[in-house]
């Protein structure tokens, strides 16, 4: 079956730097994408979402970019803080599907 994956399993950045977490997806029919953050010992929390009719969406300190041509999704975190340390998941859904399919996750470590 088709799946969502990540380029890098771990990412380490310095506090204050910008972080970029990448995600590749293979289902060309996917039209909705979400980024989740999971802190240690907790459940995933919604960060930001984007639909396929957009290529960029901004939130507070976060930006999601969608490149449908190469089926690539990225999450940019500006001025990364220690509290941003977590595992980040991208997830995708195909129009009409009941399912949200999660990628494997990237562990972000922010060094003070």
């Amino acid at each position, binding site marked *: 079956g088709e799946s969502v994956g990540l380029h890098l399993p771990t990412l380490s950045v310095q506090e204050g730097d910008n972080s970029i977490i990448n995600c590749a997806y293979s289902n060309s029919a996917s039209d909705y994408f979400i980024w989740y953050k999971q802190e240690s*010992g907790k*459940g*995933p929390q919604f960060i930001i979402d984007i639909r396929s009719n957009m290529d960029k969406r901004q939130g507070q300190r976060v930006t999601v970019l969608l490149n449908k041509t190469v089926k690539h999704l990225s999450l940019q975190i500006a001025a990364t803080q220690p509290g941003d340390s977590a595992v980040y998941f991208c997830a995708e859904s195909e129009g009409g*599907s009941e*399912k*949200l399919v999660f990628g494997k996750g990237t562990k972000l470590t922010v060094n003070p």
Partner: protein
Amino acid sequence: DTAVSQTPKYLVTQMGNDKSIKCEQNLGHDTMYWYKQDSKKFLKIMFSYNNKELIINETVPNRFSPKSPDKAHLNLHINSLELGDSAVYFCASSQARPAHAGELFFGEGSRLTVL
């Protein structure tokens, strides 16, 4: 007030036993889910219920049986536990159906260890 609450948070049991994990949401959502997260952090959907009706049933052994007594509750019962069932089980809910119409709200997880 916890939006999605699961009990127990930790569960250690022997192979062959039967156990249940309970989930309740106070968000007024119509759709609830069970996800399994393995040791590599991979999250995979198991079941989804919309207003007490089963709408997703992934390829899960029939030892796993979800039960939704009402739309605010979705419990997971596991029979004849096996070592491979060890994982963190997350309950989640969403306001909209299908899932891609809105975010999922997750509980804190229930870590099951089968010895």
